[in-house]
């Protein structure tokens, strides 16, 4: 078969390299005796750039050299290639969010006091990225800690019109008290696991 044309060799190199290539890199593809000079290379690159106009990738010159990149207009399709399967949020994140929702505006220190453990900054960052919480001010105490509150996006996501649509705190507290003080002491004494175990472990959702 005939020897490939210069622009083809350059295209092959750009496709295989996976990194930007500069003129010296291109020159290094060739044996010293038949190495094209920089002018020739540049003309070949110009031809290549032309050739790509109708194709899904384009030749771009960046700081470290030339590279091929997929055109931005393919984003709507290619985004699906790179999306990661969404994971699950950690319990720590969910609890932090719940405390912010019910206790807002609240500082990180106050959340830590309630949960008894430190709130990692990755949790608040995640919640802020999702635009569910925001900083609404600073508490005027030493260190001026940020005051965190929920956003309208948070309400939208959970289909709430306002925070008042969240079940009132009192409901939780009443439930917890029921859990803690079983109405009949018999239940504790007789070891019959069948006695309302479900209720105790998973209190029903508040109406």
């Amino acid at each position, binding site marked *: 078969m005939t020897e490939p044309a210069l622009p083809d060799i350059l295209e092959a190199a750009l496709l295989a390299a996976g990194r930007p290539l500069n003129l010296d890199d291109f020159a290094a593809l060739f044996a010293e005796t038949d190495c094209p000079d920089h002018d020739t290379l540049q003309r070949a690159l110009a031809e290549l750039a032309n050739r790509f106009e109708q194709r899904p990738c384009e030749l771009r010159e960046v700081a470290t050299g030339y590279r091929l990149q997929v055109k931005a207009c393919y*984003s709507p399709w290619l985004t699906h290639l790179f*999306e990661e399967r969404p994971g699950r949020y950690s319990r720590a994140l969910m609890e932090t969010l719940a405390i912010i929702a019910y206790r*807002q505006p609240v500082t990180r220190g106050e959340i830590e006091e309630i949960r008894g453990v430190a709130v990692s900054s990755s949790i608040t960052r995640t919640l802020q990225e999702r635009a569910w919480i925001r900083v609404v001010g600073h508490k005027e105490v030493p260190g001026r800690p940020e005051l965190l509150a929920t956003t309208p996006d948070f309400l939208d996501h959970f289909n709430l019109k306002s925070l008042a649509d969240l079940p009132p*705190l009192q409901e939780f507290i009443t439930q917890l008290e029921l859990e803690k003080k079983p109405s009949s002491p018999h239940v504790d004494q007789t070891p019959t696991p069948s006695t309302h175990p479900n209720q105790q472990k998973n209190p029903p959702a508040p109406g």
Partner: protein
Amino acid sequence: MNQQPSPPASDQPPDPAQPSACALVNGTPYRELPEDLYIPPDALEVFLETFEGPLDLLLYLIRRQNLSILDIPVADITRQYLTYIGMMTELRMELAAEYLLMAAILAEIKSRMLLPKPAESPQEAEDPRAELVRRLHEYERFKQAAETLEALPQCGRDYFQTTVDTGAITVQKVYPAIELEDLLAAFRAVLRNSERLSHHSIQREPLSVRERMSSILARLGNQTRIPFTHLFERHEGRQGVVVSFLAILELARERLIRIVQDEPLGHVWVLAPGGGAAHD
């Protein structure tokens, strides 16, 4: 492409004068290990190490003399094989037990070949070499298969995967889904674990007051100061006014806002705590 990784001796025509050359170093056959070490011992070692095991060594010995595996001159081959083993031992090369086992097998075959064949039932008299022949064939097939495999187009050697930059592609982030019930369950867990919380006064603070506190703070983030009256919405009615008022009082109590009046009977302003004094 199809390089023979086997020792270089294979392209040497078999020389009947010296059928038992024990090694070839740079193309020169050596019948015995020279005492004065003219050959650099390393070279010989490298040569011997090119064998992948006793079967490989045997195959080499057979192929070197253009013999058929089907008709191995066992006595000859055994002698040559033992010479190699001897060299390896002399060079104190780590000798795998398999080489010695093969020496034993060869010796056994040789002795059985010497025995006269039983006259009756010639059909069942198996050639003592048959099992070795089978193993040599089997090994040779895979030796060749390995070479064929090696010669197949390989990624990064014969063909290259294409990769182009995807920096221009914007990726939408996909977030985990959560339901309100998940959130409430998390909150129940918080309350269950936090005795302290239930003793706090929060249980008496209606949620709407805290929400209003957040929204007032958020507005102060944008505006730095807001006329007090603007914090009340007429359409919310009396209850809305009460909620806003309680929120303002609570914020002031927690020193999250300042309430100032520049002059008697003038506008009352609500300021972010760090904000400067209000003036028109």
